[in-house]
């Protein structure tokens, strides 16, 4: 391509580099600032002296967060939720996607597809779901956090389209050799779909880790909150009311602000650590569902 070196072009380039650089910084500087506050001592943090680098460096805030029994319990709920919710998601997604992806027709196949689609676009709304959970006696149990979202319909469509992209001859020849549908799914389809399954695992894990509204609604006792729902009390409400969750003696030593920052960073850390993976697989997920069949 012809390269212009006109002054207009140079000015445009310079401005463009600066503008996009600042935009990128705008996305990460608030995170860095919060991390800096979380690592700062009480006086500096309360006086608003911390910008992007910790002042009066201390790990006291993280120590306090980890000592907090409620925080630890919330973390445990979140980990249990991941341990049960993610495998359950993958199991249900695969089991539903496989029959629907086949060319083979069977009674009820199309009907099921429409039931699935309608369920994606229409819902009874918050209150009927809450009342349903109550009548099933699921409130305040881990099941309330994993069962309603056990079948993410969008993910089913993604995997279904991925299955359709596999060469049909594989399943056909296996079936001529006497393989059952269970064997075709577990021995052929799933091993061939590892990239798609990796994407869906990350979708599901990030979803479960980040979800907090369901915890707020379905858990009546705050002691049953998962981590991010617990932050609603320990970070959001505390900030809005200007109250502090720690006891007064403790606040002589550390600042409530730094304590909140430490909890925020703690909750963000797993996502930030997984970021390289997320970047790779989520973008794949964007295009994965677009194979038409």
């Amino acid at each position, binding site marked *: 391509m012809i390269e212009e070196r006109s002054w207009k072009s140079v000015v445009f380039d310079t401005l463009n580099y600066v503008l996009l650089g600042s935009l990128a910084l705008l996305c990460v500087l608030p995170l860095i600032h919060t991390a800096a506050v979380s690592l700062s001592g009480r006086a500096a943090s309360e006086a608003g002296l911390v910008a992007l680098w910790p002042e009066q460096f201390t790990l006291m805030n993280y120590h306090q967060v980890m000592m907090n029994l409620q925080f630890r319990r919330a973390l445990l709920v979140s980990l249990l939720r991941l341990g049960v919710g993610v495998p359950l998601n993958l*199991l249900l997604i695969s089991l539903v996607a496989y029959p629907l992806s086949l060319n*083979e027709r*069977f009674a009820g196949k199309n009907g099921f597809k429409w039931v699935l689609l309608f369920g994606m676009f229409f819902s009874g709304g918050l*209150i009927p779901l*809450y009342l349903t959970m109550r009548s099933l006696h699921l409130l305040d149990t881990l099941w309330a956090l994993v069962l309603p979202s056990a079948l993410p319909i969008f993910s089913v469509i993604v995997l279904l389209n991925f299955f359709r992209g596999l060469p049909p001859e594989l399943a056909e020849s296996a079936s001529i050799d006497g393989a059952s549908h269970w064997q075709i799914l577990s021995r052929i389809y799933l091993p061939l779909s590892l990239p798609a399954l990796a994407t869906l695992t990350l979708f599901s894990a990030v979803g479960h880790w*980040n979800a907090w509204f369901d915890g707020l*609604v379905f858990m009546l006792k705050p002691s049953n909150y998962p981590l991010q729902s617990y932050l609603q009390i320990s970070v*959001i409400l505390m900030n809005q009311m200007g109250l502090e969750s720690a006891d007064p003696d403790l606040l002589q030593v550390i600042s409530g602000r730094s304590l909140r920052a430490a909890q925020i960073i703690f909750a963000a850390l797993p996502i930030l650590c997984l970021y390289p993976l997320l970047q790779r697989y989520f973008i794949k997920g964007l295009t994965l569902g677009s194979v038409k069949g």
Partner: protein
Amino acid sequence: MAQTMRVGATQLARPNEAAAKHWRLRRQIPLYVMLIPGAIILALFHYYPMYGITIAFQDYTPVKGFFGSPWVGLKQFERILANPDIALIVRNTLSMAIGKIVIHQLVSVTFALLLNEIRIAWYKRTVQTLSYVLHFLSWMILGGILLDLLSLGGLVNSLLAGLGLQKVPFLMQPGLFQPIAILSQAWKEFGWGAIIYLAALTSIDPGLYEAAAVDGAGRWRRMVHVTLPGIAPTIILLACLNLGQVLNAGMEQVLVLYNPRTYVTADILDTWVYRAGLLQAQYSLATAVGLLKSTVGLGLVALSYWLADRLAGYRVF
């Protein structure tokens, strides 16, 4: 003669055919077994709650349940019409959702176009990588960060004070809530939104740029006359799909950022349903509002997919 031969052939084939059909059906049993767990989840957590919508036409009390509560016809809907709060909430919902859709799309497209002009590969890659970190963080985390940044003792006010300006209690002012919500939504999602445009950009024929350059078009004109038309179908497609979302103003974001002082501009349908229904236990009224929202929302989604199909040739299935 031919007739009898054909009859004979079908008679011969019949037992085999029946056996084949029987075998096929038996082979299909696992397919049904596979669908059972999914069907149970759908029935319990998607469809049974849909039946629960009936309480919008009842005076529901928990003791009497879905089946025993008295029917009151359209009373709840009359209460909605008579409630002045509802008009306000609908207005808030629409203005916030439309603001978010427009600003988000504008920023994403501009960002993609400008990023495309960057020639230094590592710089481009770094900017893009940083631009969508926030997409993966929840509003609980970002809300916590924003509440602190925008508070009176926060970094933004420290900067304002440093410049000799008055401090502003940003999230206490009703007039600032919607702009903050709209901009912070764009801040969280623009990098993610740009990905699809950047993908569309790679499919533009480089020959077009060369031809335009030979014709004397400068960089600006090439951007406007080659790049922009190149991604226009994608822009139109996303605009259509977004139409289905104009009743979703972002409940999670509003829930973490608002407070009683900003309810006037911040309260949206979803947050109102949450407060009225769950915190004040007005189950039937909140369900009725939720029902209106889901019904109109379904219509809008259907319309948006129809438009996306007509204007951009897009299909989900």
